[in-house]
């Protein structure tokens, strides 16, 4: 298709989680655990998340 300069293509999942007001540090810990245990499989997937 003529797209130049592409070295690699990665495909993944994008999840949006809505949180109630609360302690950001506690959410950080909780979501990291959820990513590790359920939302991704660390054997085959990497994950990263940001809390806004």
């Amino acid at each position, binding site marked *: 298709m003529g797209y130049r300069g592409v070295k690699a293509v990665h495909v993944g999942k994008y999840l949006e989680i809505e949180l109630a007001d609360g302690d950001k540090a506690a959410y950080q810990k909780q979501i990291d655990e959820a990513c590790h245990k*359920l*939302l991704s*499989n660390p*054997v*085959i997937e990497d994950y990263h998340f940001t809390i806004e």
Partner: protein
Amino acid sequence: MNFAVLQFPGTNRESDAVHILQNVLGHSARLVWHKEASLGNVDGVIVPGGFSYGDYLRTGAVARFSPIMQDVKRFADAGGHVLGICNGFQILCEAGLLPGALVRNKSLQFRCEHVFLKTATTNSPFTSKIAKGQLMRVPIAHGEGCYFATDATLKELQAKDQILWQYSDAKGALTEAANPNGSLMNIAGVLNEKRNVAGLMPHPENASEPLLGSADGRAIFESLVHSLANKANFQT
């Protein structure tokens, strides 16, 4: 022997597993619904194939949180024998009871066909009655059967003799053409380190009677029954 065959929403072929254990081999087997908290008094557990919880998120990812899987973990940790078939294999990997993971077939297609399996070790409760060098012709039916594990895990699997079956051609050669899904090292089934939990992508329960075109898969269930009856001990 007394077997539990698990049933999740979306499970299939569970009746085939019950049929083999009950009608073909003459043992007792009952279906256990995912919401049950206890397996009851059983000698072995079969986690059958299908699309548990619609395969949402990842294959097997949701099933492992079900009430019954907590008791399967307890049972396995206590040394109980568990065999996962197809989606059952995926569930056991997600539950951390087996090493590695199953990802989308390399072809990106759902594959439904017969394959040949070469038994890599008979030093397990699931393969002890399989004649050395004997190939098994069994069907596969999956879209996510490509076995993946890190290099370190693969080395450990080899060192500890945990690879149970590999896809081969009709002559027993582990070729790329005979690999239906792109699995690393043609791996079709593996064992845990304690040698009491196993999983495989093919369906031996659909190849355990001559009427179905192959009775080769029966040797897996016979091995399991024999090992349980004799309280056989397998170590590496």
